[in-house]
């Protein structure tokens, strides 16, 4: 059974091919069966393979398929590598992926490009599986770029609106910045260590590079660049909020549950390199901390239901990076898993809300929808509880582990912990602000709206509710993967620390309640204060990062493009063209159509040639 691991990406790939080659001519029912069924088959085989792998007790399993290319010493194979980490990732991708595919069969049912949607989704799942199962960095990079492509295609899925196309291009270009760094990192690793097979490479790095050597630092920094781009961390986070232009299941699958966590996977996969470069690892922690705080502030001010969730995704991935930086590798992957559950749940529920309210995104135009949209309401209650890490939900266990690991870091541990707790406080505010504004209070419009929840949409929501509630009790089999990882010793922390960590989200919910439910605090009065107002605008714009990048990168580039419009190189080619053109005009004049003229020129040419022959 383990030998059949190649089936995992093959099923969705076949689904993609059959949907693409039929070009949308299949009836919707068959498209739905192919689209969701291929991922379902993939999930079934993933479960069987996982059961057998865990029963075998092996630490890892390699399935060599074929040599991809052989260029001298460089022979990356098409090999799949299964260990605890890729097992967890593969189950998340196929499991959550299948639920989202199932949901999409109902959600997208009115869309004219039904088949194209599932083709892209299947391609995405295939590429993502390639990313997590590849045993070398080249195969990983193939999957990495593949998911980037699918992300681009799906953000711009409704391409008739030019804004969506712009958002897609922005996502593609910004992540490409990180990918370029990562590609350079791969070149560096290959020239220095002579292999890109992940396990061999990590072993060679451990033997050849000293702790904190410049090469290790450079390699870790470059890989971090790729991870930061893909996972929307500072300073490359600007693409994710705009990526919400895509259909909502896309936001759930690609921009919450799987693709954006690929950066976390990459860092966890190459954690040995980061352990060799402790300063870079510390940088990872601070990138995560800065991102989670920044995104937390921004999420509190957004009005668009999907943008709130997008910023909360950025913030939660910030927690994962914080855990990675603290050396708590398994805590990061654990949070990745629980986050996949509750964030997919929140996005899918948001999709139900948006669909039921005829594509309304502004939460302040909803209000009091808990009777009208009961399934979405309970999904949001459970999802937000897990997001805010209320006790006994899945998010509580993972966030708890992360914060304890952050506290255990030598040096700035206290700072990281305080930052994380403040972030948890903000999480409580923004997640329940959403719940209070959308589902409680007075209805602000769409009074007649009915919940549109076909069973294919309701069932995934129910299952994800269970997972978001109970996912914290899943034991992730990561001990063998991160045996070298620190932060496993149970730190003895005082009760006070625990009390603060539990209280922070409740405090946030309380603040949110006072503002948006009981209206003890008047928001309008607060907004009248010029300082609060300008702060609100600053946060609303995502700390002005978009405007900053517009000024630093986009405008100078456009300026250069403008002044370079008639550049030197072009004028050379223009000269060539004009010479050829005038020569043509000159010669065209000799073609008079008069027979005598032709005969004369022939005779003259003959005389010329003969006399040349005689003279020379």
């Amino acid at each position, binding site marked *: 059974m383990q030998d059949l691991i190649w089936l995992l990406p093959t099923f969705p790939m076949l689904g993609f091919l059959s949907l693409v080659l039929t070009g949308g001519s299949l009836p919707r029912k068959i498209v739905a069966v192919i689209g969701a069924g291929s991922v379902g088959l993939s999930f079934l085989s993933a479960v069987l393979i996982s059961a057998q792998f865990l029963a075998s007790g092996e630490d890892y399993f390699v399935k060599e398929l074929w040599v991809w290319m052989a260029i001298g010493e460089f022979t990356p194979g098409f090999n799949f590598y299964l260990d605890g980490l890729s097992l967890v990732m593969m189950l998340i991708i196929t499991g959550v992926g299948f639920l989202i595919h199932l949901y999409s069969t109902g959600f997208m049912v009115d869309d004219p490009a039904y088949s194209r949607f599932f083709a892209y989704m299947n391609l995405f799942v295939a590429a993502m599986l390639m990313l997590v199962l590849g045993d070398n960095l080249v195969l990983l990079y193939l999957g990495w770029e593949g998911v980037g492509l699918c992300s681009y295609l799906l953000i711009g899925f409704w391409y008739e609106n030019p804004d969506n196309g712009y958002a897609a291009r922005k996502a593609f270009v910004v992540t490409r910045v990180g990918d370029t760094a990562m590609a350079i990192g791969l070149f560096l690793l290959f020239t220095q260590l002579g292999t890109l097979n992940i396990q061999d490479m990590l072993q060679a790095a451990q033997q050849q590079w000293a702790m904190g050597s410049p090469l290790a630092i450079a390699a870790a920094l470059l890989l971090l660049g790729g991870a930061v781009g893909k996972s929307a961390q500072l300073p490359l986070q600007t693409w994710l909020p705009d990526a919400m232009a895509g259909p909502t299941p896309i936001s759930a699958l690609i921009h919450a549950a799987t693709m954006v966590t690929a950066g976390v996977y990459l860092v966890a996969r190459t954690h040995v390199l980061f352990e060799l470069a402790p300063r870079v690892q510390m940088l990872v922690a601070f990138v995560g901390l800065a991102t989670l705080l920044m995104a937390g502030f921004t999420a509190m001010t957004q009005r668009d239901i999907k943008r709130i969730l997008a910023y909360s995704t950025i913030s939660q991935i910030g927690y994962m990076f914080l855990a990675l930086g603290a050396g708590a590798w398994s805590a990061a992957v654990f949070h990745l898993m629980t986050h996949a559950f509750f964030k997919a749940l929140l996005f899918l529920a948001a999709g139900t809300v948006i669909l039921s309210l005829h594509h309304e995104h502004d939460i302040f135009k909803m209000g009091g929808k808990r009777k009208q949209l009961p399934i979405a309401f309970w999904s949001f209650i459970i999802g937000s509880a897990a997001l805010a890490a209320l006790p006994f939900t899945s998010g509580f266990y993972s966030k708890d582990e992360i914060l304890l690991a952050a506290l255990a870091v030598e040096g700035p541990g206290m700072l990281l912990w305080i930052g994380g707790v403040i972030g948890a406080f903000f999480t409580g505010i923004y997640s329940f602000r959403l719940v209070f504004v959308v589902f409680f209070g007075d209805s602000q419009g769409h009074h007649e709206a009915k919940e549109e929840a076909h069973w294919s949409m309701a069932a995934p929501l129910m299952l994800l509710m269970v997972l978001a509630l109970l996912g914290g009790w899943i034991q992730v089999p990561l001990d063998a993967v991160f045996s070298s990882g620190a932060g496993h010793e149970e730190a003895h922390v005082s009760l006070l620390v625990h009390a603060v960590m539990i209280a922070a989200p409740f405090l946030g919910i309380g603040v949110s309640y006072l503002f948006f439910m009981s209206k003890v605090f008047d928001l309008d009065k607060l907004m009248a204060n010029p300082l609060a107002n300008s702060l609100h605008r600053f946060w609303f714009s995502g700390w002005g990062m978009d405007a900053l990048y517009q000024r630093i990168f986009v405008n100078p580039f456009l300026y250069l493009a403008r002044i370079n419009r008639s550049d030197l190189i072009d004028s050379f080619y223009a000269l060539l063209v004009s010479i050829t053109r005038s020569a043509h005009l000159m*010669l*065209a*004049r*000799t*073609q*008079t*159509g*008069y*027979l*005598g003229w032709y*005969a*004369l020129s022939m*005779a003259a040419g003959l005389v010329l040639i003969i006399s040349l022959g005689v003279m020379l």
Partner: protein
Amino acid sequence: MQSIPIEHGLILAGILFALGLVGVLTRRNIVFVLMSLEVMLNASGLAFVVASARWGHADGQVMFLMILTLAAAEVAVGLGLIIQMYRKFKTVDIDVLSEMKG
């Protein structure tokens, strides 16, 4: 028997050839162009015959026979084209046919 010196024959052939060429270049009536072409062909035939007589070799005369055949074939095709042209354009002036100029 006093034979004609080869120079005389070649000069006559050169004069005939030049006359024919001038005719081809200057005539506008296509029948005359064709006739001038015949003159040029026969000039070259004359040069072959004179040369073969000078060296007592039969090759030049064989060549002349071939030129004769070629001229007959050419006239057949050429006259056919001229008749077609006359039917279509109602003229034998070749300058009227300058439609294919660049």
